């Protein structure tokens, strides 16, 4: 594995203690190893893009961070919350972790029976115990931020895919997460609609949001993220400063993947 300029060595990240730490995180389904001893440290404000071939474990890694898939080995530390594989986390630990982690899914997963405004408000009421009025006010601000204040009273089915994904981002932001996970947020969108989602993500990154983005958008990975991680077969095969990794990969596996992507 090449570790040219990871968070531990890059001077830009060195002074800050990590916000998120993964230590030897593994995940197996039966005898199938999906994640094999992943170590990762993420500094506050850092934007990391994870790229790699399908089935390399990228999405599973994200899902292990917020325990949608409990890891089978290793340890996840976020802020003061530590979750060890093999120990079922307590309800409070899990709630703390999930409140601190916003997640955006490939298929948006908005609640189809609720209006756009309600989609953004409901978790604030249920999880943060905000009043309806307060939650709605914050939701309107967030919808305005993603450019969709005029859709507040519509149902998600009336919105385009790009709009739905921006609503999903607003919904995740409403819980004031410390870190945002994006699981291929533009893969289900045609390129034009993907751009509007990427613009929102770029704005978030510029405003200091800590983000992990699993993506096939190579341009985004290179231009917006601080660090790129290339995964294959459940392992990190290379990581480093985005431009270096994307333009001059050191490992054979990373080179092969990037060639395949660029030749398309």
């Amino acid at each position: 594995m090449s570790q040219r300029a990871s968070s531990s060595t890059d001077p830009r990240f060195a002074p800050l203690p990590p916000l998120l730490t993964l230590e030897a995180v593994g995940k197996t389904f039966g005898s199938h190893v999906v994640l094999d001893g992943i170590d990762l440290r993420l500094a506050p404000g850092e934007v990391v893009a994870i790229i790699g071939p399908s089935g390399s474990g990228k999405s599973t890694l994200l899902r292990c961070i917020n325990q949608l898939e409990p890891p089978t080995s290793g340890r996840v530390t976020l802020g003061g919350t530590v979750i060890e594989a093999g120990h079922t986390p307590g309800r409070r630990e899990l709630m703390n972790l999930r409140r601190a982690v916003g997640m955006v899914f490939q298929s948006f997963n908005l609640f189809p029976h609720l209006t756009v405004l309600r989609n953004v408000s409901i978790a604030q009421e249920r999880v943060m115990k905000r009043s309806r009025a307060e939650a709605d006010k914050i939701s309107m601000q967030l919808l305005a931020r993603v450019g969709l204040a005029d859709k507040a009273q519509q149902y998600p089915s009336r919105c385009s895919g790009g709009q739905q994904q921006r609503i999903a981002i607003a919904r995740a932001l409403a819980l004031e997460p410390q870190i945002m996970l994006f699981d291929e947020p533009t893969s289900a969108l045609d390129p034009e609609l993907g751009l509007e989602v990427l613009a929102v993500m770029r704005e978030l990154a510029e405003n200091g949001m800590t983000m992990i983005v699993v993506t096939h958008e190579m341009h985004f990975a290179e231009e917006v993220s601080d660090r790129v991680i290339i995964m294959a077969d459940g392992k990190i095969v290379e990581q480093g400063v985005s431009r270096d990794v994307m333009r001059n990969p050191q490992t054979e596996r990373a080179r092969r993947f990037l060639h395949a992507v660029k030749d398309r």
Partner: protein
Amino acid sequence: MTADMFWTLASGVPWTIGLTAVSLLIGVLLGIPLCALRMSRILALNLAAQAVILTLRAIPPIVWLFFIFFGLGSSVIELSPFQAGAVGLGLITAANMAEIYRGAMTAIHPGQWEAAHALGFTTWHRFADVIAPQLFRVALPTAAGYAIGLLKDTAIASTIGVAEVAFQASHVSQRSFRGLDVYAFAGLLYILLSLPIAWAARWADLHLRARVAR
């Protein structure tokens, strides 16, 4: 048919409606925990729920009503015909509703659970705010169809003496020696009673579908 016969038959309508409503209420509510057990990953609970559902559905309703009214009713707990009918049909409805809910559950995208988990919802809020409203929408047409079937099945309760429409029809026809018009009128009453259920279900379905059409 005389006015007297008409009113006697019509006097069965509140009993038919009442028995349908109470049985449906028992079934709709009891179906939820039964469905939860049926979907449980704990094998013993799952198997127990399967056994209960199979038993309730495999035995004919009339046998259940006889068992409850003449069996339990005469030796264990005293039950009026209406109570016995409501308990029997209610339990059978619960088994069927559990299966209807289970079918509807498979229609809900797994991403809905995941989003609710990722947002940190408690088990109760996941169910009440996210899953149940969608489950209701998906299950509604099938459940309404079942409710119409249940309305007709309440006629079985005439055999244990619930004074509903079929009971009154049988009573009037035996007294008057007239079968054709009496039973035709009873049939007409059942049609008139089932129409509002069908209309209400159709209206609710269209209304909900328009709001959340994908």
